[in-house]
């Protein structure tokens, strides 16, 4: 299938990194960037292709993370099984919230506002409910066995998150080329026209939101396994909602590679800021916010858009693989 070769190439290239360096700093950095790429791909599916800008993807990330952690710690369920159930739980939350929102006909600013409110409700509930450890947080037991989804070597974690990102890229590419993807873009461009032509807009948005939530929840499940600690601010906090939309918007909204590119750029920026100013809280986010405004103002199609422009200018225009945003 067209467009899968670049994905394979990118993933294989990234998979080489642990063979070249064994530096934990590099691997940790890339794991975080890939995690954001995965979470951002979830956002991108709904926001980039479907045009529904969510400000509350933390709702799905946190649900995935908490379900994985709580099933293991309180019910002794195997980590891998918990992982799968966590993703399913995230998808379910996405479907329920989506059903409520889309049936009420909320879009645009309202959609952003309600998704934000749902994430905040979950954050407040998680910060008082006993099952999440309330204010203390949930600590996962250290158990470095592959059966428990914990590894001695960071490289294994890296390859797992890389594989997940690879899967999300392939899935997005397949959706992009499918009938469902075409419906989704049609709804983004003009919902009334799409409905008039027989597209069930509510159903299309609902499916997109469910898949989107599942991808983002997968990121949350991985986060729990990797860091072994959660509290309400980490799992449901605004930071993840913001990074989830920052990556695709900077990388190229509504493109397959946008979230991955954006996540690498955002995380690099964050690290550079930390190196230059020490570990002062807030400054990296100031830069993220500034970059967000600058990208919207001067490069609304993100880095992928800039590449596309360059390619066109120098005459290598090739159809396919590129984003569908014109």
């Amino acid at each position: 299938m067209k467009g899968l070769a670049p994905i394979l190439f990118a993933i294989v290239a990234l998979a080489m990194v642990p063979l070249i360096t064994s530096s934990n700093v590099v691997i940790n950095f890339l794991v975080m960037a890939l995690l954001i790429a995965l979470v951002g791909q979830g956002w991108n599916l709904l926001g980039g292709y479907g045009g529904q800008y969510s400000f509350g993807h933390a709702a799905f990330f946190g649900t995935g993370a908490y379900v994985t952690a709580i099933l293991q710690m309180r019910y002794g369920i195997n980590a891998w099984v918990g992982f799968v159930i966590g993703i399913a739980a995230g998808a379910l939350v996405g479907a329920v919230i989506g059903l409520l929102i889309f049936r009420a006909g909320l879009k645009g600013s309202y959609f952003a506002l309600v998704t934000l409110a749902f994430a905040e409700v979950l954050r407040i509930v998680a910060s008082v409910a006993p099952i999440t450890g309330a204010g203390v947080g949930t600590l996962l037991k250290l158990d470095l066995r592959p059966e428990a989804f914990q590894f001695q070597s960071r490289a294994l974690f890296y390859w797992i998150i890389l594989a997940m990102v690879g899967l999300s890229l392939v899935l997005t590419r397949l959706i992009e080329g499918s009938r469902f993807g075409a419906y989704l873009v049609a709804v983004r461009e003009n919902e009334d026209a799409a409905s008039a032509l027989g597209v069930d807009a509510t159903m299309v948005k609902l499916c997109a939101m469910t898949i989107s939530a599942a991808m983002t929840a997968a990121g949350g499940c991985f986060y729990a396994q990797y860091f072994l600690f959660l509290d309400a601010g980490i799992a449901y906090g605004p930071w993840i909602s913001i990074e989830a939309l920052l990556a695709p918007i900077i990388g190229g909204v509504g493109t397959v590679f946008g979230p991955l590119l954006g996540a690498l750029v955002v995380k690099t920026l964050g690290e550079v800021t930390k190196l230059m100013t020490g570990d002062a809280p807030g400054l990296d986010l100031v830069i993220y916010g500034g970059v967000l405004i600058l990208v919207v103002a001067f490069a609304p199609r993100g880095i992928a858009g800039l590449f596309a422009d360059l390619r066109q200018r120098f005459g290598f225009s090739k159809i396919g693989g590129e984003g569908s945003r014109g």
Partner: protein
Amino acid sequence: MLSPVILFPAVLNGLMTGAVYALVALGLTLIYGVLHIINFAHGALLTAAMFAAFFAHKLLGLDPYVAAVLLTPLFFVLGYGLQRFVIGPAAHGEDRNILLVTLGLAVVIENALLYAFRADTRTINLPYAFNVVEIGPAFLAVPRVVAFVVVIFVALALWLILRLTDTGKAIRAVAKEKLGAELSGIDVAHIYAVTFGLGTACLAIAACLLISTYYVNPQAGNAFVLIAFTIVVLGGMGSVAGALIGGLFVGVVESLSGLWLGESLGQIGIFVMFILVLLFRPSGLFGERA
């Protein structure tokens, strides 16, 4: 059932709190009514105003009520500039972009404050902060009564500005029919910026009223803005009277539910109300337009 001796002060206190909520909501609803955007930077701007009021007292020794006289025009200019030179040009007229730009502004302002002042919570001590007024069985703190009166005056002033002045008429014209207003020679970009400035100026007043009884930290404004969103939706997006009534209503609801359910659940109550209203009555309880 609770006796009126407890109920009456709770309702009055709710009205006092609600007045400040209403002022924050007024700014939000004004911007929404004219620009048709939800300003996600509203909370961060409120926090910034609270810090300004705090430092005006700390460094210049200004009483918050005196500071309000200085900060209100200052924040009007700030809001005007933000809309005219940042949000307007960056958004290219697309709603989705405006959402992102105001979100970006919120992130920048909130974290710049966090970077500059750390997460510490600050309060100021005023000699009259604990004075009370006695109304029947209720004892009300003086700053809260002052806040209530000021908010009523501000709402009235805003209403008069919108009704009587040329700028007010232009604002209403742009809100109703942007293209028509533009064709009759109204400078829409200017009116947008004026509206944004007015909304931001409301925050400066709210901040000065709040700072005498409330604390400030880099997240202080957010709590109020989520309440303000609820109020704006309750009162009907874009309605000045709706924001005022909605604000007072939410204040009383919060006060009474605090009485029955305890403080910690009060916050969730507001969110749940917010989501329910958005899902089932997006046009608002007081039924403005859909």
